[in-house]
């Protein structure tokens, strides 16, 4: 089992460290070759406009879409990664680049600017205790299609969801020592 972390920009090393602590092989994905070796792909937090633009330019976006649709690649988007996997984006820049895989509508920067960023305890479906979730200029899921399962929510809206081999969280599980979300994604990869 190999899980890739999209290494274009953002919290790459943090995800790699968590995957290694979970006992799976983590690969840093910058090229189509390295992407082809992975069973799953984490799209980390960062700036969605930057990551989205660069994965188109360097030919990664098509391969991610193609392999996910074929069912050979599970994809987990955190924060900016959630924006990138979404089919619809509110408040994006004009022609905001996206992968458009998951049947969700996402609001960017839904909690406000950086000074409003926060951490909080959060109940996550199937976990027997809350986790500490770190939200940084985080997006939120405004609307979701019937195939999307809600995994966690705050009063403002849905902050974690799954649709088959797609997982998305508004928050950053790579910024705490809790490995449960990564383990949850690894299990999705194993089901492929």
């Amino acid at each position, binding site marked *: 089992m190999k899980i890739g972390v999209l290494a274009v920009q953002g919290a790459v090393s943090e995800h790699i460290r968590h995957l290694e602590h979970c006992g799976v092989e983590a690969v840093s994905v910058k090229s189509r070759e390295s992407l082809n070796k992975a069973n799953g792909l984490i799209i980390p937090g960062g700036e969605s406009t930057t990551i989205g633009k660069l994965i188109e330019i360097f030919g990664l976006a098509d391969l991610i879409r193609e392999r996910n649709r074929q069912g050979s690649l599970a994809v987990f988007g955190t924060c900016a990664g959630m924006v990138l996997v979404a089919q619809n984006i509110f408040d994006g820049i004009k022609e905001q680049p996206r992968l458009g895989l998951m049947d969700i509508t996402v609001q960017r920067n839904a909690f406000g600017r950086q000074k409003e960023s926060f951490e909080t305890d959060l109940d996550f479906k199937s976990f027997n205790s809350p986790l500490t979730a770190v939200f940084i*200029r985080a997006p939120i899921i405004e609307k979701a299609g019937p195939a999307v399962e809600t995994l966690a929510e705050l009063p403002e809206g849905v902050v974690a969801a799954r649709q088959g081999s797609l997982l998305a969280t508004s928050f950053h599980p790579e910024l705490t020592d809790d490995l449960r979300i990564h383990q949850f994604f690894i299990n999705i990869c194993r089901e492929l």
Partner: protein
Amino acid sequence: MKEQGTFRVKKGMAQMQKGGVIMDVTTDEQARIAEKAGAVAVMALERVPSDIRAAGGVARMADPEMIMRIMDTVTIPVMAKVRIGHFAEAQILEELGVDYIDESEVLTPADEEFHINKHLFKVPFVCGARDLGEALRRISEGAAMIRTKGEPGTGNVVEAVRHMRKVMDQVRQVISKADDELVVLARDLGVSLELLQEVRSAGRLPVVNFAAGGIASPADASLMMQLGSDGIFVGSGIFKSEKPQLVAEAIVKATLHYDDPKVLAEVSRKLGDAMPGLEMSTLTAADRMQERGI
């Protein structure tokens, strides 16, 4: 319960900028170009460092009106600079809602002894450093991100290289120190033992460390990344060049593929004239910004 402005949230914001390029902009039009080119954030200021250098006089925080216009224009984070020690300017920027504050030696220092107590703010701060001691002193004051000082506005990368190499070299020394030696080093650097222990166990600075000061080409960005930078600030290098849009895009690509000479060769072509640079020996001691706020 929601807890805002924790150190983890502030430091995490900088972690999300890693591998990216933060660009100095002075107008909303420039901010739009930067966002389109793939910048991870923009630094809103009234003059780029090379113009501050040329203008002389006292350089202060930018006009809030202009910062807000840029905040309304782009969706990426907006940073702005305050003078070293000028906590009132920082309070104003926090109120405006800027995403990051640079307590910067590029502006004229307001306090020759004390930096801002950055723990008191919800908004995160980035500060410049020339060596490990400066970096850790800023972190102990609450900085959530560090950058090299370099020599701003010169288009000359030599000082940023010096500062990055120095920090990396000192981190390697810390890693090899025994407990009793670390105590002495903490005293020599004027930093806490706890922070040095943190550096030793992590094998790096406890916060993200960017390169800044004199970066003017894709090759400069690659050089700094290969020396261990987590990302790149470009000040005058973009909008003082002949073809800002092209240079901005090229530096973004070079920062991503910093270790791939094939991509670097491709993106370095046909960029027009880079900003005119300054040789360090032409600067008098009073011209050097990096000695401000140590």
